[in-house]
């Protein structure tokens, strides 16, 4: 497992809190994600993981606390500003733009990196060059996630696992430094999950990206993540390497010991996934 | 003189509050701005007119009858048009557009069937005389209107805030899925709310028709501007906010007409609406059920 580089954390979350009409969904949570690592966020259903993601990506405003990306405070910034600063995310319930083609979806992710203005109306050379480059870049990203063949398909017609990969390609198009992945393996079969594991590793190892991951698939989490933060009822109950977290009494008590489907000692599927 | 204007303003404001409270209840529970609401207002007035003219009923019987007819139409519109969109979890603007189309259809239909001339209640449908308090003259009709509006608003607030039925309605408004898990019949609750809102709109139509003694198919269209202003100023979905904002608008209109100009009076509602959007978008009391985008 990669050891975190010695610089300051890429993402620092401090005292982050969100209340919904009396219910505290996220309660004074602290954690830091080091650059170039995969950081897992785990916890039973309703622990506040997705709320935390929404707070970090700016979809929800926090009741208290702060989020910093590479030392820069993100508090109060709308989602589009955070994207421009290097934050990208995928959604738990797939949210591709289903009427648009696969290629157009990825090109939408490039939005903040494109600058065309009035040139659009006269089809200026600058506009055309930029648009051509954007198309090429989007095709590269689709090839990277294994969807090159599907570029012209309507996104809503893709198979479920492919839509998840499209979401990842679309997030990569934002040219992020940190990608938030909300349950990327949800609804995938073992072969697809295995292919996903390989893809996420390549994001870290080949592209040097930092990933923050919410996931219920424990074998995936344990084999992929460099560090884990465990939430329960909105509070952080543990933080450390997978081995440390697995041995943490509070985690065993609150989470692994509950006997839910997450706790099953499922082996990482070893068979090679045959991705379409 | 001021006292007289205040009395007139409170009576007018009571009808606005009654109208808006049904409107905002519908939004608060269904999450949809149902533009057909203005139709229930006009229909209630016409049903009451018909029952006093055609059936010779007294006003105390015509009022609930008008309300009930409007309530039934509201249930029909909701069942026919909105249930389908709710099931498909369609975006809120789709529901808004459907009610918009239905509104145009119903208004045009009413105008074709009933004519567009202004109609009046038969003479002597209600004669409560008039009372004098010092120099202030209060008409019997005004007492009836204020009394009826007050009773209806208080009854609705008591129902929603203090009864088991109200608890179930609020549960459905808050989270339909969780309410279903608790054994609440969500579809039935939505019908109950549709009926209640439509009936309140209809009752407001009867009272406003009585107040100005003028009934016309498009009366609801003009009332909707006031309705929008009151529910935005009070905060979308906020019943008590609508009550206060309704009274505020009634007073503001009467005082403007008395001391400034009657043309300006018609613009008060819109000015309050826009000012609220600029400075207190979640309503004067900041409790709007709507979330920021």
């Amino acid at each position, binding site marked *: 497992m990669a050891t975190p580089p010695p610089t300051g954390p890429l993402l620092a979350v401090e005292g982050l809190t969100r209340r919904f009409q009396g219910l505290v969904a996220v309660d004074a949570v602290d954690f830091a994600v080091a650059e170039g690592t995969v950081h897992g966020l785990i916890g039973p259903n309703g622990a506040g993981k997705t709320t935390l993601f929404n707070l970090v990506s700016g979809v929800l405003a926090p009741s208290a606390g702060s989020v910093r990306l590479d030392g820069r405070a993100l508090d109060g910034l709308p*989602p*589009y500003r955070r994207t421009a600063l290097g934050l990208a995310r995928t959604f738990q319930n797939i949210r591709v733009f289903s009427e*648009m083609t696969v290629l*157009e979806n990825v090109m939408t992710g490039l939005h903040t990196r494109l600058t065309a203005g009035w040139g659009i*109306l006269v089809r200026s050379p600058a*506009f055309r060059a930029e648009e051509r480059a954007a198309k090429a870049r989007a095709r590269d990203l689709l090839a990277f996630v294994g969807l090159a063949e599907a570029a012209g398909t309507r996104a809503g017609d893709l198979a479920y696992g492919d839509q998840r990969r499209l979401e990842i390609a679309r997030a990569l198009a934002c040219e992020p430094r940190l990608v938030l992945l909300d349950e990327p393996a949800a609804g995938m079969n073992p072969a697809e999950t295995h292919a996903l594991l390989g893809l996420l590793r390549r994001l870290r190892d080949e592209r040097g990206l930092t990933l923050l991951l919410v996931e219920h698939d424990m074998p995936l989490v344990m084999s992929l993540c460099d560090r884990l933060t465990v939430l329960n009822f909105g509070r952080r109950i543990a933080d450390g390497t997978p081995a440390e977290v697995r041995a943490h009494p509070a985690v065993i008590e609150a989470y692994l010991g509950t006997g839910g489907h997450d706790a099953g000692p499922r082996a990482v599927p070893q068979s090679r996934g045959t991705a379409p | 003189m001021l006292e007289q204007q205040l009395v007139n303003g409170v009576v007018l404001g009571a009808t606005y509050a009654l109208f808006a409270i049904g409107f905002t209840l519908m939004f608060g529970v269904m999450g949809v701005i149902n533009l057909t609401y203005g139709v229930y207002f006009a229909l209630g007035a016409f049903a009451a007119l018909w029952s006093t003219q055609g059936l010779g009923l007294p006003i105390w019987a015509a009022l609930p009858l008008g309300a009930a007819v409007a309530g039934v139409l509201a249930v029909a519109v909701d069942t026919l048009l909105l249930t389908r969109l709710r099931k498909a979890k369609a975006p809120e603007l789709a529901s808004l557009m459907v009610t918009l189309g239905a509104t145009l259809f119903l208004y045009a239909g009413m105008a074709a069937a009933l004519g567009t001339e202004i109609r009046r209640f038969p003479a002597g449908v209600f004669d409560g005389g008039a009372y004098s308090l010092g120099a202030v003259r209060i008409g019997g009709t005004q007492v009836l209107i204020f009394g009826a509006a007050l009773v209806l608003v208080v009854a609705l607030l008591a129902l929603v805030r203090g009864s088991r039925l109200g608890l179930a309605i609020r549960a459905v408004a808050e989270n339909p899925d969780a309410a279903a898990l608790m054994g609440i019949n969500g579809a039935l609750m939505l019908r109950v709310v549709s009926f209640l809102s439509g009936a309140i709109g209809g009752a407001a139509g009867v009272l406003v028709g009585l107040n100005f003694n003028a009934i016309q198919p498009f009366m609801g269209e003009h009332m909707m501007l006031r309705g929008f202003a009151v529910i*935005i100023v009070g905060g979308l979905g906020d019943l008590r906010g609508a009550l206060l904002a309704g009274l505020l608008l009634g007073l503001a209109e009467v005082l403007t007409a008395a001391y400034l100009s009657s043309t300006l009076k018609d613009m008060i509602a819109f000015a309050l609406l826009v000012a609220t959007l600029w400075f207190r*978008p979640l309503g004067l009391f900041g409790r709007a059920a*709507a979330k920021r985008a």
Partner: protein
Amino acid sequence: MWEALDDFYWTYQSLIHGIGVNGILALSVYVVLAVGQLSLGQAAFMGVGAYTGALLSVKFGAPFALSMAAAAAVPALLALVVGGPTLRLTGVYLAIATIGLGEITRIVFLNWDYAGGALGLSGIPERGGVGAIYGTLAVLLAGLTLVARSRVGRAMEAMREDEAAAGVMGVNLPRYRLTALVASSAMAGVAGCLSAHVSSFIGPNEYGFEAAVTILSYALLGGIGSPLAPVLGATILTLLPEVLRPLADFRLMVNGLIIVLAVLFMPRGILPWRIARTG
């Protein structure tokens, strides 16, 4: 041959004008719908544009170009004041504010003696005509098609499909909504000015709720998959009462019904073809 064409033009002059003007109005409401918002103020913006342009022409003898420019600018300013604050909120607020605007503009025109009050404004000089109307329509159609096939078009469609996801992709939602609303109101204002200068008379009751809903029905019938679709919807709905005379009396009911049926059963409109989003 030319004579026959000339005859045809004089017979159907107002219909030909109407189709072009309504096409521009359909595009104006399309621009707002295309970013997932709903404006019911199109008729009011049209009315403000019509009165602005006509007053400049009638009272000041202004050149047509100036009337047109003012007819675009004044509604745009109004859109900023009325719609501006709603753009950080959900779409319901814009819809409500613009319905209110429609009602209030009617009241203002009705009571504004300088602009003719209830009698309306007559003696508007004939300017522009078919050339200006269809020229404007063609320019707008071309411009919107080019915009649709660019990063802006992609952002707009993304917003319409899923606002939160579009925001996370880096789309500046309030700015796009505001630009769309302002452009849309300017377009409606231009349509009003063009229409006023071919009909010689405008009145305060032409721009009310029914007109706003009718404009919306163009886009809902045609669809919003491409800029061409709403124009097609406008053409059909303008021709329909002429072709089916008995329908003319029930025009408003038909328009209402079309909206209900289109939203419930035909959400893509009658021209469901979707324009590509790459340039």
